[in-house]
């Protein structure tokens, strides 16, 4: 059931990334929704699930783009594993630690991805910092909102049910 949920979330993120993200003001570069889901999954389910989700999602992204298959997968699996491990070692239920994790994961992912391409001589990324920072901010904003929705939504539903029962 957990695997189905993770796969569905990744598929949804990928669909949104390829359809809606390109209409954002900064284009598709403004957000990496798939990375947001990988970080989310890693925080919720731990390093192994985060790593496997990152690997699968990254490789699908690689296959659907013009990159070398495996580089995105490697970067995202490392991020998924690291975030999952941090989530198990530290308390990250508050907003500030989560914000730091989303920012760190986004910057770390971009640096690994770009670093691998530059290291292997497969591409040049002149002055990437503004792009990395803006994407990290975008990912963090979406990630924080996603966490809030996932955590607040069940509480709201319960309250509504409870209020209906009390009226009867």
């Amino acid at each position, binding site marked *: 059931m957990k695997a189905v949920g993770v796969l569905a979330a990744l598929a949804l993120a*990928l669909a949104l*990334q*390829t*359809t809606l*993200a*390109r*209409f954002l003001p*900064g*284009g*598709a*570069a*403004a*957000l*990496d929704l*798939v990375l947001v889901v990988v970080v989310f999954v890693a925080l919720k389910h*731990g*390093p*192994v699930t985060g*790593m*496997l989700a990152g*690997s699968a999602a990254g490789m*699908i*992204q*690689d296959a*659907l*783009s*013009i*990159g*070398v*298959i*495996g*580089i*995105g*997968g*490697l970067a995202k*699996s*490392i991020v998924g*594993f690291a975030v*999952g*491990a941090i989530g198990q070692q530290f308390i990250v239920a508050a907003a500030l630690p989560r914000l730091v994790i989303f920012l760190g994961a986004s910057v770390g992912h*971009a640096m690994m*991805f*770009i670093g*691998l391409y530059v290291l*292997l001589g*497969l*591409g*040049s*990324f*002149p002055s*990437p910092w503004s*792009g990395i920072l803006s*994407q990290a901010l975008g990912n963090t904003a979406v990630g924080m909102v996603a966490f809030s929705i996932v955590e607040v939504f069940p509480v709201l539903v319960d309250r509504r049910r409870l209020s209906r029962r009390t009226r009867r």
Partner: protein
Amino acid sequence: MKSAPDVWQWPWYLFAALTVGHVLLISAQLNTDRGVPVIEDVTFGTFAEAQRGISAAVGGVRTWWGDYVALQMVRDDNIRLRRELSQLQVTLQQERAMARQSRTLSRLLELRTQVPLATVAAAVIAGGASPEFRTLTIDKGTADGLRPNMAVLAPAGVIGRVVSPGSRAALVQLLIDRNAAVGVMVERSRAQGVAEGTGTEMRLNYVSGGDDVVAGDVAVTSGIDGIYPKGFVVGQIESVEREAGAFGAIRIQPAVDFLSLEVVLVVTSPPRLAVGDVASGPGTQAQE
């Protein structure tokens, strides 16, 4: 009863295995400077060293035998081989001259058979899956005659090229992608250069310091890259920086709004271009 070990309890082993798997997968797709896949190079290199050792041992014995034991008729062979080599060198010179002549003639023939462009209309069905690359997916593929490196155009100008055609869809690399480049020339002054993507816009590079390029100029394809047909609009020069007489950063604002693309044209007839044809102005026209 002893239960089987649970691999899910070994995240570090799994992490290491997955990382090695990714590295092997990446290596399988990469080539070294010599054009050999990395994985093949490493594997081959390892085994080759062992073979080299064996070969050196065997070779030492053979050399000793050949140099000191089997020296018979060597002087006569040497004289005969020198004569043959002289004859072959003369023949090689003749063959090279004929090859040069053949290449020149084939270029002339290509120029004469240049035809107008044929295009296929395609709808944009998805944007890029990875934010690090600027790509689009269109709803036409090899079944519709699409092949890699076919130019993709919009009414406003050039969009990019087909990089990965499937049977019913194709991936298009946009001009603003960091790995994209197109040969361009300034329409007004005919100054030539290469427009390279930066992720959000384009930079015009390799422009000679003596050329005339100013902000507001229109950059069109020069056709020299053999992918994009000549004379189509790439963008407008947004700003020009000069440093000690040479051009610094020349920024190009793309003519196409990549965020609002819905339908594109894929040029299915390859641009045929002869050397020296790049300075004669737009010479192609699109037809559906």
